[in-house]
């Protein structure tokens, strides 16, 4: 991604948009390999340093767990994690996500790493934000080939958590848990409503007027490029070097 307007990079728009959805939360957890959500969480923390905790798996500076691999999940089960991020090789219109395989799972065309903690975190974390940088009919499909974690559940299933939004390189969708459908919330600068419809494999609701995704204000940009960039460089040095041109401190 590159500069889209007024010297603002696409990643910065995503970071700011996600951070707005995390505002004032107590504890945001970020999985492995998620630099943009990680930066968004750090921006949310920078805005409320006395209220917001962030834990990033794989980080040394931003990971305070001391009870082994299970603690993140126990913590979510206790209701102590307010937001989490999930991706998907495929995501469908009911917000089902697929992290396992394309084709018959017993003899797949493509095999991905696996479901990780998604089958659980999607049920236990109130605000799960889906994040997918490749927005095409190949990734946003009508029906996933394998459900790593379902977007919705029957009413008798214990489920304090679930999908809250889906953000891509083209737009932001909100998810309506009652209807079990996405609705288009905003289109990123440089993209169009028609393009979104064309590049999305599932049906979704679309209001008459779809706003453009807001550009981050000056103060937000300063925070992203200053403290957030420095913090993110510890965990994702490649990302920080590419997007912010900074190196990890020794």
């Amino acid at each position, binding site marked *: 991604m590159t500069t889209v307007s007024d010297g603002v990079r696409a990643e910065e728009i995503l970071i700011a948009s996600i951070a707005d959805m995390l505002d004032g939360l107590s504890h945001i957890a970020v999985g492995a390999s998620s630099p943009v959500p990680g930066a968004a969480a750090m921006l949310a923390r920078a805005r409320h340093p006395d209220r917001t905790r962030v834990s990033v798996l794989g980080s040394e500076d931003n990971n305070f767990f001391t009870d082994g691999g299970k603690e993140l999940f126990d913590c979510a089960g206790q209701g102590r994690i307010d937001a989490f991020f999930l991706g998907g090789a495929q995501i469908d219109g009911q917000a089902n996500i697929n992290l396992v395989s394309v084709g018959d799972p017993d003899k797949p065309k493509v095999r991905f790493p696996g479901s990780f903690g998604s*089958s659980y975190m999607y049920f236990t974390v109130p605000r799960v934000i889906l994040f997918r940088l490749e927005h095409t009919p190949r990734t946003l499909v009508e029906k996933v080939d394998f459900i790593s974690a379902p977007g919705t559940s029957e009413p008798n299933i214990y489920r304090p958590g679930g999908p809250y939004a889906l953000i891509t390189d083209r737009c932001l969708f909100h998810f309506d848990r009652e209807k079990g459908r996405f609705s288009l919330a905003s289109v990123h600068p440089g993209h169009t409503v028609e393009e979104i419809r064309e590049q999305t494999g599932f049906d979704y609701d679309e209001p008459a007027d779809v706003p453009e995704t807001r550009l981050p204000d000056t103060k937000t940009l300063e925070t992203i490029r200053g403290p957030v960039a420095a913090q993110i460089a510890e965990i994702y040095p490649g990302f920080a070097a590419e997007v912010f041109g900074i190196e990890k401190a020794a």
Partner: protein
Amino acid sequence: MDAIRLDLDGLAARVSDGAKIALPPDYSYCAMALVRAIIARNVRDLHLVGVPALGFQADQLIGAGCVGTVETAAVTLGEFGLAPRFSASIKAAGIRMLDATCPAIHAGLQASEKGVPFMPLRGVIGSDVEKRRDDWVIGQNPFAENDPILMVKAIQPDFAVFHAPLADRFGNVWVGVRRELMLMAHAAKSSLVTVEKIVDGNLLDDPVRAAGTIPGLYVGAIAEAEQGAWPLGIPGGYDADQDELARYVDMARTEDGFAAYMAGTKAVAAE
């Protein structure tokens, strides 16, 4: 009581065909040198349990034909992408795959740790992960009406196989905050552990050190293996050997390349 101290081959010899072995993820403490010794013994039909995910260890064991079943929440080489021998084997239906989710692996091990036949776990219901597991059951919360809940069957590995920075001569093994290794050790029938260094004193004598130490009770045998996680790193110790890992990923794209890589690594190890 003094620990049983072996060399790598001695440890590897304990792993017989068909054994169920629990392995940590790449970012924890992986006994890569021991894995190479197991491969060298041509062990067959292993049942790998990823706690909760697998990486280079599993890819090499699978590539070498040592594996019958993989039970894990994921197999990934992290920034190096998909695991080539795992992917090839899955596509060829060469291994039995038991897809899980991280907390279900932990729950299954906790059941064995507690000596109970199962552990309840929230979530998971309605996923294909759950639907494709014959060994999980959806039961009822006995303290509520109409509240289905997943019951994960206990996972009892024959061996927990891992590396650690430090052990003492009594077999006490320091793992620090990497408590998934302690859970593995509690749950498994026995643990086979390599360490950077075996010290003479008792690690449990220092109350600060003791808090991150697995008692020798759970440890079947230990071996000293300096740089035993290589080419992976160990947290707080040495970094992963990125060039070597890249070389592996590149060569392992084909079966022949994989064989050449393993032969070369064996030759290097024998020097």
